[in-house]
């Protein structure tokens, strides 16, 4: 079943931050600690970094895990095994939190 964002969670992309992160990535800097997506779950604010935010944005219920993986592997230069492991861990974390659902 495809992954879908919990509709009760409000979120948005921080455009200025995202532009800064993209520029930093161009320069080869580590941007893993820089949030670009803000979301509010159960009244608390959280942020996702650029890659996490990209996955979050793609989880609109229209894609399988395999399709997500294929899209991300085209966008990011990461070893396939590393990406698969990171993606699984991220998805498990967010589904455990009920931020993402299978449906």
């Amino acid at each position, binding site marked *: 079943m495809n992954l879908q964002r919990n509709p009760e969670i409000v979120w948005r992309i*921080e455009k200025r931050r995202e532009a800064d992160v993209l520029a930093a990535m161009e320069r080869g800097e580590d941007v*893993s*600690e820089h949030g670009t997506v*803000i979301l*509010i779950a159960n009244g608390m*604010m959280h*942020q*996702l970094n650029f890659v996490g935010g990209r996955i979050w944005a793609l989880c609109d219920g229209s894609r399988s895990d395999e399709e997500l993986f294929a899209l991300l592997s085209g966008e990011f230069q990461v070893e396939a095994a590393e990406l698969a492991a*990171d993606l699984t861990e991220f998805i498990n974390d967010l589904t455990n939190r009920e931020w993402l659902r299978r449906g």
Partner: protein
Amino acid sequence: MSREDDGMTIAQLDTPLRATWELHDSAGEISLQAELVAEKLVYAGLFYVTLVARPLAHPAIAGILTILRGGGIQVQATFAGTEEEWQGVAGLKSLPEIGLDANAFLSCGTANEWESLHQALESLRQYGTRPALWMVPDRERLPLLPQLCDFGRRHGVTRIKLPNTPVDASFSARQARSLPTPAQLAALRTVIIDPVALRSGLTLEVHDLFLWEILFPGERENGRSEYGGCQAANSLAHIAANGMVHPCSSWPYALGSLLERPLEEIWQQGARFVVLEKIAALPAGCAGCGDYEQCFGGCRGLVETLGSADNGRDLLCAGRRPPSPKGRH
């Protein structure tokens, strides 16, 4: 890829996430160009807007709600029970989430006042809404808090909100004297013998840290999860009836007019960063306090607006506290 739970730095937000918006000013004049303002709030990507100051009596309320909801904003509105507001309610197909403004009904807490509040609650329910109760805990009404909780439980209200004290440019010395004092909070603490029972069946949203401590004792080790310091001019904004953007409803400092500029632009300009610097600065009166990392100086807006006799400490703060023996801080 990662997700961050805490310690998040959000000073670079494009725009606030939530705002309060006055639809009438203190003289009763309506917010002008309200639909334009609503469109700007939608465009700025806000998540939550709370409409205050008799919003349902605004002649353009239906259009305002359509714009805000259509833009994905979750809308709440306060309700004070005036005749014009009832007319507004009757004219709406779908009400927003309502916060029934207990301050408009209660002063001394007489039986008649509680009955009026009850009647308003039941009348609103006939429109298919389940109102929350809102009460700004001012000096006069703070002692009524236990009764308000009982009232809510008895009448099936599940949410009670105790928001910050709003301040506008016309705030007078008389109004300043309506703020509760640390001594009054201490007196309330002696009255609330069983806070768990007081909260039973209710969701309490409490702005003031020192009041929160009385209502949620023993929960400090878990932190006050929804609070990471004053959010004014950060994730929070206030829109005055004249379209002026303020850091929050307790801080009438002009950041820029929504009638003239988009919120994204106002949010990236110098006036906002002046406010952020003030919030980030350790108030002299808080130096050495063991609880600073819990309260971060508390409500900075009221201190900035009204001044503090205690070197910038929150107006409800009774004094510096010793460092935690566990070295938590």
